């Protein structure tokens, strides 16, 4: 039973200007499953393809982004949705907000600054299912807000009256009015202060625990994944480097890139020198051959330069793409 199954997805940006054509291989052969009732973390650096991946699985792939290959299939209860073939109107009517909702960095900007919060709720709900009974709608919204632990008076406030953290939490409440099966949270706390970040992430966790739905949490911050995610996928240069339950990935990372990411995190109370990784993330218009991490890898072998490592399962629910690790070797 899976909520989302992504198989061998390839999505490239293809642009052409004055005779120079460029292909950016942003997502290059990715397969993974999202299960119901989990927080799935996606980590990776800028331009590793994580934003592109989100675009494709949320049905927002527009030119110059093109899906070349692969499948993106959702199962919402009885219904299945093929995200690469669904019509725009169907997507708008039955899937967005209702089954898949989206929370992003600075998503408090969905709140109309000159209208009370409740009016914004009303507008959003009305566009997806016509509000017949206004009292019932108010009641439902109030219950929803209370359930998320927010005070009901925020509904009658204007966005500028709310604190930054509260605005982001209201935006999340708005994204979850329809109890969607999947919440995609794309860098939801990146621009927020640590204290506020903590509050917002706690709320996301609470919602997930309460509704038993799935949260896809995308952030570059490994420390956030350590505290929020159940499983984590590490992306590097358009491919999956490693995927495992949070505990395993932090306690026993297998891919050299993951190892670096985790070992280089500074921790209060520990001052020993942390090594840096040589080189830079590759240009996806011209990625390295073989394993895309090989120019930076401290353990590089001849094989890595030519052969693309397969993503193999090494333990239960632990997959890694590295020539150092053989299938079921651990």
């Amino acid at each position: 039973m899976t909520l989302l199954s992504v198989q061998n997805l390839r999505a490239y940006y293809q642009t052409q200007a004055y005779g120079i054509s460029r292909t950016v291989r942003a997502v290059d052969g990715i397969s993974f499953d999202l299960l119901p009732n989990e927080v799935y973390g996606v980590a990776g650096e800028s331009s590793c393809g994580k934003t592109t991946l989100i675009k494709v699985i949320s049905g927002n792939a527009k030119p110059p982004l093109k899906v070349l290959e692969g499948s993106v299939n959702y199962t919402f209860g009885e219904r299945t949705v093929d995200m690469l073939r669904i019509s725009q109107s169907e997507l708008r009517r039955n899937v967005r907000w209702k089954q898949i909702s989206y929370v992003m960095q600075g998503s408090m900007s969905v709140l109309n600054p000159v209208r009370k919060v409740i009016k914004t709720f009303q507008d959003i709900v009305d566009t997806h299912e016509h509000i017949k009974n206004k009292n019932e709608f108010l009641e439902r919204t109030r219950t929803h807000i209370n359930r998320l632990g927010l005070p009901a008076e925020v509904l009658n406030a204007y966005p500028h009256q709310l604190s930054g953290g509260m605005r982001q939490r209201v935006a999340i409440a708005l994204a979850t009015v329809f109890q969607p099966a999947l919440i995609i949270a794309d860098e939801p706390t990146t621009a927020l202060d640590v204290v506020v970040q903590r509050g917002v992430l706690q709320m996301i966790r609470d919602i997930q625990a309460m509704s038993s739905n799935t949260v896809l949490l995308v952030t570059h911050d490994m420390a956030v994944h350590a505290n929020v995610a159940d499983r984590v996928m590490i992306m590097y240069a358009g491919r999956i480097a490693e995927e495992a339950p949070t505990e395993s990935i932090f306690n026993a990372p297998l891919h050299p890139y993951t190892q670096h990411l985790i070992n280089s995190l500074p921790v209060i109370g520990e001052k020993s020198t942390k090594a840096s990784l040589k080189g830079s993330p590759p240009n996806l218009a011209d990625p390295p051959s073989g394993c895309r991490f090989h120019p930076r890898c401290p353990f590089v072998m001849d094989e890595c330069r030519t052969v693309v490592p397969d993503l193999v399962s090494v333990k239960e629910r632990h997959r890694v793409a590295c020539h150092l690790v053989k299938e079921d070797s651990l």
Partner: protein
Amino acid sequence: MLKVLRDLLRYDGRFRLAIILLGGVVVMILLSYDSPYDPGKSFVVPWDLPPSREHLFGTTSRGQDLFWWLTFAVRNSLFLGVVTAIISRVISVLVGLTAGYRGGWIDRVLMMVSDTFVVLPLLPILILLSFLLRESMNLLNLAIILGLFGWSFDARLIRSQVLSLRERSFTRTAVYSGTGGFWITIHEHLPFVLPIVFATTLNNILWSIGMEVTLSVLGLSDLTTPTLGTALFWANQHGALVAGVWWWITAPAMVTVVLFLGLYLLFTSINEYIDPRTRLRLIGG
């Protein structure tokens, strides 16, 4: 430069069409230097002849060959437009960049002057000046006057762009590299402002040609100089449409359309090319 031309010619249909249209205009302008008729003289050919092989655009009621007369008109109108645009662009770029980067009282004074120009009712002033300067109101003077009036709005546009550029880190990097205000403006800000300058140049040329037409139709410009405006004035004066001399109106209108369309296409295609975003895409950003 050659590479830019080659790229544009090869990949931009608009640019190719612009070259064809403006090529025609340029040929006309060049031909004016070898005209068999003096545009100042009338009744040198039979009057009111429709377009024929001998008289490409026909002849006017004043006994002038319209094609050859229009070669002078297009030359003069374009000259007016270009001179106006150069004068007003220089002023607007200087004022916009300075006001935006310097800020403070310099900005306030410059913007006050600019705002004054924005709200001045131009047409009455032009009519007044035309009366006062009747004797010396030649094309160059008109171009200078229009140039002096045509910069203010664009200066404000450029200033607002520079205001946002000034807050970007690279401006501060340049400041702490010890770079002076002048070079910051030239190196850091001007490349971002160029697309505005280009887009407004076109508007300005069209505007000044149009202003001249307005003044001419009112009989307020130097009517002995052939321009696209005076062509219409004379046609109107002789009741060209009533008299059935439709080509006297149609020919200058056509030439005007070709000129405007050519300039428009040229500027939009060049503008897209020099747009920082396009440039970034070309250098692979």
